[in-house]
């Protein structure tokens, strides 16, 4: 009984970063690295909270959050795909945009900097888990199917490994990457919206707390496989749970150190394994088509 609650708790904590990281996996597989996830999540969390408060419907809020993610992703794709600009530079620009815009709008809308705004939350099924977190395993499985079992996935992987080959087989690398990128931004948007509507039921300036960056690291940690990425996210979620649990026990164990544990773990696993699993060869390289 309690262990089911623990597992659901882990899933809930893992969900925002897991959605974002699964989206990032799809994007990176096609050759695009999106460093701007943090900004996308922040903006999505804000729009979700705003719409949820205004309409009173967390579902509309969720849709707005996902839509906010899409809009951010669309802006980004104009730079990294159409202009073929440096993906890391543009991603950092997007982070600043999302963080700055959401904080400023939040102040304009709700006033003070330290105000924590309560908004209507997503409902739980029988007090167990809300529907969004329940979709998480299916989203991971769907991403796995899309990347490894679908025709589009084969072309997307080709675009990420050797774009010229995808182009020569008659597929537009730019279009493939555009779709992969938008899908990634959409999932990051869902993750951001879930932060405000699913977990906290509120919005504050530090809501994402770097989860967007963690998501990027998780993709490498999970070896560019959606199931692996989900597993990595759950591990982080579990560590977060453990941290609260230890804090509650009051054993005098410095819980901040446990807070660092997931990141230390991720770094150690990367250092031990990354050479055996190679990143997509064309990752972060803009593709310029000569007409």
């Amino acid at each position, binding site marked *: 009984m309690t262990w089911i609650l623990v597992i659901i708790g882990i899933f809930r904590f893992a969900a925002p970063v897991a959605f974002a990281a699964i989206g990032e996996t799809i994007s990176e597989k096609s050759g695009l690295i999106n*460093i701007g996830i943090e900004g996308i999540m922040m903006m999505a969390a804000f729009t979700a909270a705003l719409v949820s408060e205004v309409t009173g419907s967390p579902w509309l809020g969720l849709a707005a959050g996902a839509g906010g993610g899409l809009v951010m992703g669309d802006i980004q794709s104009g730079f990294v795909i159409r202009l073929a*600009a440096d993906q890391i530079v543009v991603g950092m*620009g997007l982070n*600043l945009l999302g963080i*700055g815009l959401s904080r400023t709008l939040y102040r304009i809308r709700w006033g003070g900097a330290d105000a924590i705004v309560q908004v209507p939350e997503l409902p739980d099924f029988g007090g167990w888990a809300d529907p969004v977190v329940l979709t998480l395993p299916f989203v991971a499985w769907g991403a796995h199917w899309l990347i490894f079992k679908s025709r589009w996935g084969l072309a997307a992987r080709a675009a990420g490994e050797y774009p010229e080959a995808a182009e020569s087989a008659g597929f537009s690398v730019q279009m493939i990457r555009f779709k992969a990128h938008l899908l990634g931004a959409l999932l990051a948007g869902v993750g951001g919206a879930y932060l405000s509507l699913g977990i906290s039921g509120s919005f504050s300036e530090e809501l994402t707390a770097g989860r967007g960056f963690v998501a990027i690291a998780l993709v490498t940690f999970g070896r560019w496989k959606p199931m692996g990425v989900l597993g990595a996210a759950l591990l982080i979620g579990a560590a977060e749970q453990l941290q609260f649990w230890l804090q509650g026990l009051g054993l005098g164990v*410095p819980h*901040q150190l446990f807070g660092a544990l997931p990141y230390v773990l991720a*770094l150690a696993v*990367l250092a031990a394994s990354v050479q055996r699993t190679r990143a997509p060869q064309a990752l972060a390289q803009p593709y310029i088509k000569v007409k």
Partner: protein
Amino acid sequence: MKEALLVLAAGAGLALLLVLTLAAFGQDVGTSLRLLADGAFGDKYGIGRTAVRACPLILCALGLTVAWRAGMYNIGGEGQYLTGAVAGGFIYQVVSGVGPVVFHVVGLLGAAAAGAGLAWFAGWLEVKRGVQVVISTILMNFIVLKLVEWLVRGPLQEPNGLLPTSERLSREMMLARPDPQTDFHIGIWVVPIAILATWFWLYRTRAGFLNRAVGENQHAVRAAGQKPAHLRLRAMMISGALCGLAGGIDYMGWAGQISDGFSQEWGFIAIPVALLGALNPFGVAAAGVYFAALFAGSKELERFSQLDSSVVLVVQAAAVLGIVWAASWMKNRQQGGSE
């Protein structure tokens, strides 16, 4: 001549972006600009505020410039900055009895070394283990942040053990302030030296030349008999040293103690400063002063409107994306259709 025009255009562009951003948020542009200017340069307090903010921004951005120029996407300025401050805190515990001069010298050297060490480790992970610096430095930022949270409640906590903060430096142990009423302290003089030194190193020395070359084409550098891995590790160490130094200076000159909120994301905000400075030390200096002024001025804005320093991030974002757009546009025009 052409370059002067470009700089002028960039300056005008930045000013325009500020105006547009303020207008977009429905602010009275004239009033807001006056508040910003007053807060940043209106009096000696304003100038001091701007200077202490320009210091970490420019030092971190110079550090990032060196790394990015070598093709190492160091995102870890934040962690390296914090590490430098923490090193200063520990050194204080050891040498506080010896007197301020020893503390300042040893503390700043230690801060730079600690930052360099952390950045070196990230670089080592990339060149030896294949973990990209982008990824590892992001993770390290979080690790250091959590460690600081623990340290200020543990080994670094003030002697009474009550508050989550390190012991507050006495006025004697802080870097001297010529005018105690303002924030300005002598540590800020490191900044112009660092700007000149970084420029000289990049453009007038063999090491700096190779640093730039390895970022543009590591294969060519290798074929010339150099070791790209060594060059990149060195770039990371210099990068970390500058970021760590910034943390040490802020600890000794501005904050005087380390707590959870010690970092105001300077190491992170320095990334757009480095980019907007076109990864050139003088450009970095200009961009650093501009944004330091906006951050300082936004303190004044905060008092009289709903806006705060967050709005500066929006201006930064617009500027970064604007520059990217302008650069692509010029590149396309130059190549006239490319090959």
